[in-house]
């Protein structure tokens, strides 16, 4: 007889590099994205966009377009405004802020190039675009507010006549006694940092199909979105129709990156066109439109200063974060620039602070969500300033960071502004990164290159990533008109297989894979027995917010674990009846339930399913409800703050100002790692986006408010050719407030990676004393910094 040791730990998928269940069909080209979806009798729309940044619309004549063969309908802003409200805003972080709202189609005034002014729906997209050329619009140009300085100038033209100026609002947070801290400091370092406009640029642009059934009064919507529940609520608000009459379904997403979190006017335009024509209407944003019609982000100036003692202890931080918003509010308003202020102290203990966010309107595209959501700019403030201070004090760049970290026992750690970080072993993470720099031989590479006269530098960035957004009531308190909980249903069916229903969206992160891993481990069943369903508001539960704020793994994961625990208990109770044993003595492994420590009789989840759904007599315990289903709603008591230390090896060509990325590593702690391969993927993709933002990507406007980078010829995404090798190292410190200990990881790369490039360039040019403060750091800009530094050096020599 074989003796089998009892196995207590059931874990077998969590923590392993399980391949993504999503991939085979996507890689085989069998995915179904929004433009692959067709519905019967569908017609196609296209949008006419403003060629001017600021103008009054004095006349619109659609008669020629309407008469064009194949055209079903032409819609103007005035038509739309009779049936639809203004575009909703959900974030109001600044008290008494002026909120700049607009309709999905401009009614009488345009405030950015690319603002939608009319729409055509026709037999197909070709005809719709032909008809757009037949719409005649008379514009009366108005003075353009092209950038932040123009917006803040004393005699600036105003975007909104009933506002006193172009400032939507401002909010200051203070902690301690900042004035005294700065007065008593040994050293104050300051800088004005700028991050150019950029956007998430999912390679699949946005799109929707809307069918308005005027008989049922219902809306059936296919939408390429990260937040179907939010879209449903906001469609209900805009049209004043009940939520239960709106169904939002989401096909495969070809990237979202926060851009598809926001709620856009095109959804509303398509709905109105459908209502007017009685046909389902498809409206796809094409690549060219995406540069003006998808939310822009990142555009900020941050004027900050840091006070320190001569031993490197940070005493204080103060400054202003200017959010360079567009001509109207996007869904998340001034949220991202506000988040920069909330995170501008980063991982450091700074007892005295005076930090302000100021939201300013300009004649640019609306500002919205993009992976990182303001935190990358907070990171620029603390990481660039602490390095400038290290340089002045002659301190090692890692030592000055270490000196200012809260110790692990100081958590939960209140930053002084809004967040309380749940847990952290920052010094350990820093040590992990520096030990890997040594192992990879970067310092030798740098020394060799320098001996050859080449400029090679090592950059650092220590970042924090507040994730698992968030406790609903606290989100409401800080100005979100929405919640942050997550709900899942875990259902075992009549043959013992499991389906998980979630309100989260799978847009490339591998959510379906990790949810199946967690459910399989909790229930003791094979992963192949789990199916995950997302992307349909009729069948899937409500999630607060949407898939954003790095919340799908920690919140959805916690809810699956909690529901799974309860379902497992019920499975064991039913199995106990079948096995005539006590539930406490049972275990489940690979879907087989048996008495622990024995090799005797077992039953399968199939037997349990049958007992719960079909043949209940003498099998389902008395008093037990039929079916096997648990619902869990998890509203976190606190957020979970991930963190990491990233390092980058670069080479700078001093004669051209070009930067080559040679190698990159990140030591990281996102609590329990569900799937290291997918965490690596999140980190790598995010870093690639940050490196693009740091060196390449910029939405450049001229003084007339015209966008000069409206194609992939000029808006430069990094390709595989530009991205360095990546090395990732995981440190696991379970999140104390999240069942399962999971923290979010989706935004680590974008947060860490921009200041990182500045740090590495500075180090490569350390003999010159260059300080990179403006991103993207393009070759002409860097060459100018180099030449200035060279002439400074020659002047002082």
């Amino acid at each position, binding site marked *: 007889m074989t003796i089998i040791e009892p196995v207590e730990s059931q874990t077998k998928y969590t923590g392993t590099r399980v391949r993504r269940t999503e991939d085979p069909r996507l890689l085989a080209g069998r995915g179904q994205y929004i433009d692959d979806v067709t519905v019967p009798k569908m017609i196609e729309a296209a949008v006419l966009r403003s060629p001017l940044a600021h103008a009054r619309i004095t006349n619109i004549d659609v008669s020629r377009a309407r008469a064009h063969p194949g055209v079903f309908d032409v819609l103007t802003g005035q038509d739309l405004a009779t049936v639809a409200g203004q575009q909703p805003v959900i974030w109001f972080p600044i008290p008494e802020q002026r909120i700049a709202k607009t309709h999905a189609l401009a009614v009488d005034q345009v405030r950015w190039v690319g603002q939608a002014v009319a729409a055509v729906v026709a037999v197909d*997209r*070709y005809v719709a*675009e*032909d008809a757009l*050329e037949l719409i005649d619009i008379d514009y009366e140009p108005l003075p353009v507010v092209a950038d932040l300085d123009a917006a803040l100038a004393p005699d600036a033209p105003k975007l909104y006549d009933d506002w006193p100026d172009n400032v939507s609002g401002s909010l200051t947070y203070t902690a301690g006694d900042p004035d005294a801290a700065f007065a008593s400091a040994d050293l104050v370092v300051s800088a004005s940092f700028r991050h150019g406009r950029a956007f998430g640029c999912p390679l699949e642009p946005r799109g929707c199909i809307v069918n308005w059934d005027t008989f049922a009064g219902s809306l059936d919507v296919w939408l390429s979105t990260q937040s179907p529940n939010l879209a449903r609520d906001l469609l209900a608000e805009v049209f004043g129709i009940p939520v239960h009459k709106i169904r939002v379904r989401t096909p495969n997403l070809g990237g979202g990156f926060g851009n598809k979190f926001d709620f856009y006017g095109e959804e509303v335009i398509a709905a109105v066109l459908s209502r007017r024509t009685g046909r389902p209407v498809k409206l796809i944003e*094409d*690549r*060219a439109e995406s540069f003006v019609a998808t939310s822009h982000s990142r555009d900020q100036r941050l004027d900050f200063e840091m006070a320190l003692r001569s031993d490197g202890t940070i005493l204080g931080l103060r400054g202003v974060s200017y959010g360079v918003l567009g001509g109207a509010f996007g869904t998340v308003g001034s949220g991202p620039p506000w988040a920069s202020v909330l995170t501008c102290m980063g991982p450091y203990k700074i007892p005295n602070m005076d930090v302000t966010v100021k939201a300013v309107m300009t004649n640019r595209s609306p500002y919205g969500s993009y992976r990182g959501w303001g935190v990358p700019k907070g990171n620029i403030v603390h990481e660039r300033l602490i390095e400038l201070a290290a340089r002045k004090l002659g301190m090692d760049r890692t030592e000055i960071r270490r000196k200012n970290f809260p110790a692990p026992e100081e958590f939960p750690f209140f930053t002084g502004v809004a967040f309380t970080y749940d847990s952290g072993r920052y010094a350990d993470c820093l040590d992990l990164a520096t030990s890997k720099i040594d192992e990879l031989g970067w310092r030798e590479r740098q020394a060799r290159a320098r001996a050859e006269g080449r400029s090679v530098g090592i950059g650092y960035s220590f970042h924090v990533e507040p994730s698992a957004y968030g406790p609903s009531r606290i989100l409401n308190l800080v100005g979100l008109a929405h919640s942050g909980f997550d709900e899942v249903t875990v259902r075992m069916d009549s043959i013992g297989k499991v389906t998980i229903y979630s309100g989260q969206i799978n847009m490339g992160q591998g959510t379906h894979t990790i949810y199946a891993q967690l459910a399989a481990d909790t229930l003791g069943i094979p992963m192949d027995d789990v199916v995950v369903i997302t992307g349909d508001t009729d069948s899937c539960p409500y999630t607060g917010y949407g898939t954003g704020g790095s919340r799908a793994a920690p919140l959805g994961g916690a809810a699956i674990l909690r529901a799974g625990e309860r379902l497992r208990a019920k499975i064991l109770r039913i199995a106990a009846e079948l096995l005539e044993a006590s539930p406490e003595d049972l275990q489940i492994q690979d879907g087989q339930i048996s008495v622990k420590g024995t090799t005797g009789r077992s039953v399968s989840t199939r037997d349990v399913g049958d007992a719960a759904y079909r043949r209940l007599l003498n099998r389902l315990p008395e008093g037990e409800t039929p079916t096997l289903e648990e619902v869990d709603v998890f509203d976190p008591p606190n957020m979970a703050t991930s963190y990491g230390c990233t390092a980058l090896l670069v080479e700078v060509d001093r*004669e*051209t100002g*070009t930067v080559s990325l040679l190698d990159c590593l990140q030591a990281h702690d996102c609590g329990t790692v569900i799937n290291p391969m997918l965490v690596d993927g999140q980190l790598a993709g995010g870093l690639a986006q940050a490196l693009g933002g740091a060196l*390449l990507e910029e939405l*450049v406007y001229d003084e007339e408010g015209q966008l*000069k*980078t409206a*194609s992939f*010829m*000029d808006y*430069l995404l*990094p*390709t595989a*050719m*530009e991205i360095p090798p990546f090395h990732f190292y995981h440190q696991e410190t379970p999140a104390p407030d999240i069942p399962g200990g999971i923290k979010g990881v989706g935004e680590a790369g974008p947060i860490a990676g921009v200041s990182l490039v500045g740090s590495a360039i500075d180090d490569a040019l350390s003999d010159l004393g260059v300080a990179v403060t403006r991103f993207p750091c*393009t*070759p*002409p800009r860097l*060459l100018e910094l180099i030449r200035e530094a060279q002439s400074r050096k020659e002047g002082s020599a």
Partner: protein
Amino acid sequence: MKPPPVKYARAGDVQEAIALLTEHGSDAKVLAGGQSLIPLMNFRLARPSILIDINRVRELDYVREDNGTLAIGAMTRQRDVETSSVAAASVPLLPEVLRHVGHITNRNRGTVGGSLAHADPAAELPALVTGLGGELVVQGPNGVRTIPAEDFFMSTFTTALEPDEVLIGVRLPRLPGGTGVAVEELARRHGDFAIVAAMAAVHLAPDRSVDLVRLAVSGVDSVPVRLHAAEDALTGGRPSAEAIEAAAATVADAIHPADDVHAPASYRRDMAQLLVKRVAKAALERSETKS
């Protein structure tokens, strides 16, 4: 991004293409690899009424040596030239330059003639043909004529091609054995059009004096620019750092760069000078190792 309505005709040979061009005049556009034309049509920036597709004109797909000249058919795919041993032996600068043209997928589709006829002043192939003193071979209703490269490229996207003419090929003089070649391109990303590209071919006489120099730049004028003054400054003398400096000093007067979103004119001017120095030096070093 849907093009306006457009008619389509496929030409089976050059004569047929010319006949179609004669029939439709300046409303017609010849479709070669489509790497620039199709995006321009999707943006509705190009609006030809008819496309004349010459992709089936097999007679224009060749790379051959012909009497001290490398002859390349207009419809030869860039990738085929890049990997051609005939081209590499005759004009070793060619594969080096082609590696900077887009990515492999672009070069698989893009044609030599398409790039030359499109005449983007930042493109690499027009600069190479100009720099090496190549000739463009064009055919119209009245027969075949050849046009020196410096006369062919007239301005941005503008060439000496008449509306009823088809570019059928290009002829490049063979570079003598032992010629050193070098290309440097400053672009924001791999495969992008150049902010500035510079290319050089240098040959040394038995006494180690410079007896052949070809220098060209792209991205710094409305046409690709052959740097005659710089060539003259290097020719005849012994290679030296001073000679290279003197050659580079002539560059600024030979070019007319413009500002754009990627770089101001002043940056382009400085970089043209720098890259000319770099390619001249590299080409000299390579020619020495070969002689």
